């Protein structure tokens, strides 16, 4: 008798599962993105759905997948059916082209501003009152200062942190050897290398570890204004890197699913005034002048250098710094 109940339960579960899996009458898009963009795209998807309904009359549902930028790119390469990807680095989208040819080589030229509708930079988050008096990159390697950053090997955001520090050292008139020494010093001050940017933020905020967190500007703003108001403040270094998180259409997927038009519109709407406004609201630096002016108060003045001017391409930067045996690995080799 008991077995019959068990089987009934099994059948019931199967039925429920099957019934809910396929019940869609609208256009759906899948946006595969990286970790910190969750709140941004939650808002943006709602706005775009409304806009699309108004202009075309069809209902669009945008599904989200979030994770580490590299992991997400790998999932797309291995067959996750993303209509659009919105990742942390061009390197990861480049990999989708190289490893799986799911989009053409010129993908980055297909949308304005190198396909990066919003930008960000790397800033410092310190505890209220800035007890260690941290003002600029040089202060990070003072004795007794403990720095929190995720692991550049596993986190896209951490690579921006690393490159920002390296770029600063170069900009100070240093050569490669000096920059390497600076980076080596810096990572000696890092007690924990979390696997992702969100993990680092938790370590810094919830666990109370470290004096300064190297973070995306939008994460730092989010943390200081919403997660722990009055507990943290942002320090803008004298120079930092212009981080350009790119977006792209996955041609092979949209052509198979017949969603090219709506996917294209989805990405283009990011550049519209409404899209830019939403990005700015979530503390990403907008591209559109009108919106920049409106949110000028929010973003500190920082001299920004680009990846291209200091490192060439992402491929080159990756090969020198983050590959196995690259400069980041050398920092941790014994006897150096």
């Amino acid at each position, binding site marked *: 008798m008991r077995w019959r109940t068990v089987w009934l339960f099994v059948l019931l579960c199967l039925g429920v599962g099957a019934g809910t899996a396929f019940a869609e009458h609208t256009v759906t898009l899948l946006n595969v993105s990286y970790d910190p963009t969750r709140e941004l795209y939650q808002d943006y998807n709602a706005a775009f759905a409304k806009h699309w309904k108004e202009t075309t009359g069809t209902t669009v549902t945008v599904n989200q997948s979030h994770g580490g930028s590299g*992991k997400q790119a790998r999932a797309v390469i291995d067959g996750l059916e993303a209509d659009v990807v919105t990742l942390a680095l061009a390197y990861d989208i480049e990999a989708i082209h190289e490893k799986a040819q799911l989009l053409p080589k010129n993908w980055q030229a297909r949308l304005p501003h190198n396909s990066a509708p919003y930008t960000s930079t790397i800033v410092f988050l310190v505890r209220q009152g800035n007890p260690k008096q941290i003002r600029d990159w040089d202060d990070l390697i003072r004795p007794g200062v403990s720095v929190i950053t995720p692991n550049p*090997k596993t986190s896209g955001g951490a690579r921006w942190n690393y490159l920002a520090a390296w770029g600063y050292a170069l900009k100070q008139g240093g050569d490669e050897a000096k920059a390497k020494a600076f980076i080596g010093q810096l990572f000696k001050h890092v007690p924990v290398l979390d696997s992702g940017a969100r993990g680092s933020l938790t370590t810094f905020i919830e666990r109370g*570890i470290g004096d300064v967190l190297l973070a995306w500007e939008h994460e730092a703003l989010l943390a200081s204004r919403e997660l722990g108001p009055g507990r943290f403040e942002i320090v803008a270094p004298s120079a930092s890197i212009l981080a350009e998180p790119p977006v792209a259409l996955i041609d092979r997927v949209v052509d198979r699913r017949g969603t090219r038009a709506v996917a294209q519109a989805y990405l283009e709407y990011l550049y519209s005034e409404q899209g830019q406004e939403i990005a700015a609201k979530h503390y990403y630096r907008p591209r559109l002048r009108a919106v920049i002016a409106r949110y000028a108060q929010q973003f500190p003045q920082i001299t920004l250098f680009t990846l291209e001017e200091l490192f060439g391409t992402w491929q080159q930067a990756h090969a020198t710094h*983050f*590959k*196995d045996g690259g400069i980041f690995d050398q920092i*941790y080799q014994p006897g150096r």
Partner: protein
Amino acid sequence: MGLSGFFRRRRSVLPGFGLTLGLTLLYLSLIVLIPLSATFLKASTAGWSAFWHTVTEPRALASYRVTFGAAFIGALVNALMGLVVAWVLVRYHFPGRRMLDALVDLPFALPTAVAGITLTTLLSAHGWIGRYLEPLGIKAAFSPLGIVIALTFIGLPFVVRTVQPVLQALDPELEEGAASLGAGRWQTFRRVIAPELWPALLTGFALAFARAVGEYGSVVFISGNMPMRTEITPLLIITKLEQYDYAGATAIGVVMLVISFAMLLSINMLHWWSGKRYA
């Protein structure tokens, strides 16, 4: 006994040997063997020298030390404490015994990520436990100690659950006999009880160790992931994947797989061997 005993195939009146063995092999092949062979093939795509280079680079070697070392210590702690826990749960009666007994399986059911986050919350400098350790100069989270604690947590049920049934089944006459011959309690334990428990303890140790070696979810939160110091091997696999280096990732996976397999096989053989000896 020996080899002839091993190969003796008892003629049985029971049906279904061919069918069940066939089905077992089929299912194992489909679910375990074929998928696992994919890792071997992928690892071999890079060639032998690249394979060797990948699995013997200093960072990989350091991660083996951390992973296998922490897993070994964790399993050792589990063997010792698991023995005490199993002993207490079987032999003594005290209030709350049943509840403790039931709790032992908790690490199986809690998602490892939750375990990791929870342990980190408890052990970090401001946590319930960490705040008392910090003044003593003990750093529990983000240190090798944290890894050991996490691995002890996830391997805990294995030793308790393998030793418990043996203790329960232990013939009381043996102990009575030893006692009547004038043996002290400690002597009885060492000479009579310990040899009976030994194989089960070893099995529990091996399972806890094997499980700990592969663990990722809970450790990654608590270890701090410092290269050369607290970086575990599964994390190294992830960093390889992050560079789209599937061959390198599977190469390290293969090394872990082979070691675990050798461990488990030798323990199963030992079990069989000790079973033969005591039978």
